[in-house]
Structure formats: structure tokens, C-alpha cells
């Protein structure tokens, strides 16, 4: 009888399936441990000690956040409290958030908790994308906090009659259909003043997450299409 080739042997393939699946799973679990350590939310002490975390502490809302090129990494990164010139955060420059820049660790965490809950309960993700995931019926919210539309040169502060970014956002979130910007509007979701505050804190915090340069060139190009 001719010797049978291993390549047409069911048991060989069954064992290969088991070994390869096992190996891939173990590797995934090992990488998961490393990733968990890297994306665990930071502490206020980290910020005070100038430690850059991929997901900073909720107290990041006390600081000025920008999105700038890192020379080392070759793409944009969130800069918290000022830039050292190379694209590293200085954690110095503060920024008022609803009139305060001394939100304690507990207060900020509470606000973020409310905002994250709100982002799920109000179903943001089934119109918007968050970190690029979700639906495509409305703009991505990853860096919404840094969107020029809400800044001093944007139209939203004047439209909502507010003088700061956070107040303009909170006002819009509570009465979205009162401030239509396009034929496609955001519906009224019954967001209260407190929930709106939480949601804005959630957005500001999300803008401080290191997303490896996504989205590219955010807010850098104005009117390239229509040549403003």
C-alpha cells in the first residue's frame, strides 16, 4: 500500500487547527494584558508629575488641550497643558471648564461617568462615530472638543449666544433642533443641563486620548475645497 501523504490526512489538519487556534489565542491574550496596562485611565498624579498616558485622568478637563504634530512619532498627538516644542505635553497651561480649572479627581470622574453613561443612553453612536466607530450620519466626535466650529472663530458660540466652547456645546446638546446647521439635524434627546455638562466633559476627555494620529490633519485645513 502506498504511503499516504500527511497533507491529505484529516487528523493532521485537525491538529493544525487546534494548535494554530491555541497559539493565536494565547498571543492575543498576552497582547491584551499589555494593552490593558497601556490604556488604563491615568490619575491626577500622572498629570501633576508630567506623565503622558494614552487615556489621561478625568482631571484633564482642567487643562488646555490641543492636537499637534509630534516630531518623534510623525503624526499628531493630543497636547495637554502646552507643547514642549517637540510634540510632548507640558501639563502646565490650564483652561477654565464651566468657570473652573480646579475640578477635583472625584468631581471630574463623576462628570466623566455621567457623560459616558449619557453617550450610551442617548445613543450617540448610532448617528455619530466615536473614535471612528459608530454610524456615519453625523460628524465624528473623537476630537469634537477641538473642532474650530466651536472655537472663538467658529459659528456655534454666536449661534447659541454663549461665550465659551463648553457652554455653547452644552446649550446645543440641550436644544439641538433649535440651532439647525444643516437640513440633517440632531434630534432633541431630552438632555438635561447636568447631563450636557457631563457629555461635554466626556468629549473633552475623549479629545485627550492618544489615537495614534487619527484623524489626520484635524482642523488644520480650512476651506481647501472652496478656497476660503
Amino acid at each position, binding site marked *: 500500500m502506498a504511503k499516504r501523504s500527511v497533507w491529505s490526512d*484529516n487528523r493532521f*489538519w*485537525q491538529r*493544525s*487547527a487546534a494548535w*494554530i*487556534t491555541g497559539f*493565536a*489565542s494565547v498571543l*492575543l491574550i498576552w497582547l491584551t494584558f*499589555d*494593552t490593558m496596562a*497601556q*490604556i*488604563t*485611565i491615568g490619575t491626577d498624579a500622572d498629570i501633576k508629575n508630567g506623565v503622558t498616558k*494614552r*487615556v489621561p485622568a*478625568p482631571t484633564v478637563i482642567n487643562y488646555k488641550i490641543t492636537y499637534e504634530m509630534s516630531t518623534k512619532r510623525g503624526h499628531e498627538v493630543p497636547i495637554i497643558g502646552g507643547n514642549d516644542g517637540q510634540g510632548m505635553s507640558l501639563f502646565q497651561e490650564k483652561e477654565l471648564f464651566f468657570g473652573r480649572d480646579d475640578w477635583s479627581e472625584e468631581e471630574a470622574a463623576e462628570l466623566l*461617568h*455621567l*457623560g*459616558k*453613561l*449619557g453617550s*450610551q*443612553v442617548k*445613543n*450617540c*453612536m*448610532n448617528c455619530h*462615530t466615536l*473614535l*471612528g*466607530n*459608530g*454610524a*456615519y*450620519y453625523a460628524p*465624528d466626535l*473623537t476630537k*469634537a472638543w477641538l*473642532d*474650530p*466650529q466651536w472655537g472663538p472663530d467658529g459659528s456655534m458660540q454666536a449661534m447659541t449666544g454663549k461665550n465659551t466652547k463648553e457652554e455653547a456645546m452644552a446649550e446645543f446638546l440641550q436644544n439641538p*433642533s433649535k440651532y439647525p446647521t444643516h*437640513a440633517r439635524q440632531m*434630534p432633541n*434627546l431630552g438632555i438635561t443641563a447636568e447631563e450636557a455638562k*457631563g457629555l461635554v466633559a466626556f468629549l473633552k476627555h*475623549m479629545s485627550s*486620548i*492618544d489615537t*495614534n494620529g*487619527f*484623524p*489626520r490633519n*484635524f*482642523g488644520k*485645513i480650512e476651506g481647501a475645497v472652496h478656497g476660503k
Partner: protein
Amino acid sequence: MASNHLTGIGRESKQLATWYFTFAAILFGAQLLFGLVAAIQYVMPAFLFEVLDFSVARMLHINALVVWMVFAMFGAVYWLLPDETGIETVGIKIGKLLFWVFAAAIVVVVLVYLFIQVGPADEMSIWFIHEGREYIEAPRWADFGIVVVALGFVANLFLTGIKGKQTGIVTVLMADMIAFSGLYLCGMFFTDNISMDQYWWWWVIHLWVEATWEVYVGALAAYGLITMLGAHRKVVEMWLWIEVTMLFGSGILGLGHHYFWIGTPEYWWEIGALFSALEPLPLVAMFIHVLYDWGKTQGEQDAQGKEVSVIRNKPAFTWFVLNAFGNFLGAGIWGFFHTLPQVNLYTHGTQFTSAHGHLAFYGAYATILVGMMYIAIQGTNGIKVMNHTKSSIWAVSLLTGGMMGMTVALTIAGYVQVLVSRAQMGATWAAYFDGQSGIWFAQAMDWRLIMGVVMFAGFALLAKDFLTTGKAPVHQR
């Protein structure tokens, strides 16, 4: 689906399968209906504004998708289990009870989605309204219900597989279904950290649709080839093990392509790119496998001088072949288009993803599950050779043509979005709306809606065929 011809071993299990298939078919219709609402809203934003908003319509659209597929998958297992193991499914009474629990829970969840829609930002809303996490929005109470139902299903499968004949197909299904059910647990917690949230959320979504569901489809295709063509089990099962090796070998670490931009470290770029780029390979293998077995069995038949088709169920086989190709095209090609981080930086979160999602779910899953429904109709009506009817041909043509048209339209919309909103304008609010208001984007969305209507017409014919083909005179009994 009448069950008068269901006799002998496995009668109860097959009857339960028809229940699952019936409920799945109804939810498939609901999925298309809410998809149409969302498609209309892209073209006419005032449509049902603040009545049934896009967010609600879309949540119903994608949840109906997931749930009808899970129902059809459970149903297909209950259908094939007696054929494979040679015995009646163990614990079938509990299986039937769990079906009603599952169906009732889904009805309650849908009614709450429709009529309550949104609540205050607290844990109660997460527990009783919805969790607001794409694809697995079901409220927490329903999560626990789903876990109980899934445990019952897996227990039935295992007890039957251990007691009866344990074929390669059953072995694969046992290993696969326990992973499939277990992974759902990864989506059942709340965290304030959105990066952490999305990390585990992808364990459910990706390790379902790009790993465990694909392996499930491989097992189903193997079963289909044996029952519909009389393909050799040994050859079919060897292919199945090769497919499992390749699918899990690429799909498990391919998970990394969802970790490029959610706050996770850079090494996922390389891991995600490498392994997800390999993901289309098993899909090519599966396509070749189906055509190979078809050609081989038909060739053997021809060699004996018999000029008859070896296919015992033509409509089901049509759907199975569409699955083999659609899986490769929708999941493989359309997925590969944007899986490398260099491309994905610009395509992530655009209609490009939506184009891929539509064709992949349809090509990889909807097709084969509809095929299984036809196999069940054949069995329940005692049909020896099942042929196409006019409706079955029109149904498959309109559904598939509509889906292809929609995919092309969404791909074009995606290109516009990538080029205008992302590359040219830098992804801001203004950039987003500049892209959306462009004429090419608007036209693409018009075509998407038209193609959605074509699909819906196809579904109406499919439903008609499901209800009537059992008694049609075209079949050999």
C-alpha cells in the same frame, strides 16, 4: 412552514429549527424595513424626524440583523444535528422552551427601542432601555437572558454531540459555538473609559463575525455539500479543518485592525495589518472548495452517463454558491480595501466601512442562512429534488442585485467622504458636511435608496416563495 413530513429520528429538533427559521425570516424583513427608513433619511432628513430618528431606525436595523442571524444559526444547528449525530437532540424540550423565552425577550426589546427610545443618563437606562453600543445595544437584562438561552443551546449541542455520532462537522460546531457564546460576556460591562470599552466591544463583534461566525459558515457549507450534492464526507471535512486553521489563524489576531485608532498602542498597526490581510485567504479556499466539490460530484455522475444534475436542492444550492462568492467578495475584497492602517487612517468611520459591512454580512451570512431555510422547506415538505420557482429566482436576483448596487453606491459615497472630508478638509464638522453635501455623495445616497427598494422587493418575493414553494408542482417528490 408545515412540518407534516418531519418523521423519524430528529423530528423534534427539526421542528424547533423551523421555528427558529420562521422568526429569523420575520426579523430579516424588519431589518430591511428599518434600513429603508434610515436610507430615506439620508435623502430626506425630515422624514420621521423626532418620531423615529435615524439613531433608532439604525439601531433596529443592525440589531434585527444580528438577532435574525443568531436565530437562523441556532435553527440551522438544530436542523443538522440529528442528521449528523444520528439521534434526536438531547434536551429538546428545554430547547423549545428557550426558543419562546428568546423570542419573547426580543419582542420586548424591540418594543422598548421603538416606543421608549431614550432615557435619562443613568444605569437604569442601560439595564432596561438599551446600552447604546453598536450591534450589542440590547439592555443588560436581555444580556443575561441571552446568556441563559445560549448556555441552553450549547448544552443541547454538547450533550447530543457526545451521546451521538461525533462527526468532524459536529466537533467544529461544538468548539465554535462555545467560543461564540462565551465571547458575548466581553460586551456585558460598563466602563467610563471609552478606549477600554471599545477594546472589549470588538472582542464580541470582531471575534464573532471575523472568526467564530466564519468557522460556523464553513461547517454549514460542509453540511450543505454533503446533503445537497452527496459530496464525500472525508474530503469535505478535511477542507473544513483546513478552513478552521486558516480562519482562526488569521481572524483571531486580525482583531488588531480595529485597534489602530481607539487609544490602543501602535503595535496593533503591524499585527492588525498582517493578520487581517491574511483573512481573505480562507475565503478564497472556501469558494474553491464549494466549486470543486460541485464539479467533482457532477463529473462522477457524468462519467456514469447520467445526464442529471447532482444538486438536490437548487434554490438552496444557489444561495450556498452565492455565499461562497459573496463571502470572498464582501468580507474578503471589500474588507481588504481598507484594512491597512495607511489606508484606514482616512477610511475609518466613513461610508466605505458601511459598504463593506453591507456586502460582508449579506455575502458571508445572509446568503447561507437563507439557503438553510430552503433546506428546511425541502425537508418539511418531503421534497426529493427541490427546483427553483419563478419567485425564488426573482428573489435571489433582486436581493443580490440590490445589495451589489447598494454596495457600489456606498463605496462611491465612501470615496467622496475619504477624499473631501478627510484628505482635503481634515475631518472636522465643516469637513464632514462639505463631503455630505457634494453632488456625488448625494447621488450615491439616492442610488443606495433605490437599490434598497430593489432589495425589499426581493425580500417580498422570498417571503412569498417561503410560504408557497413547499406545495409548488415543480419539485420531485
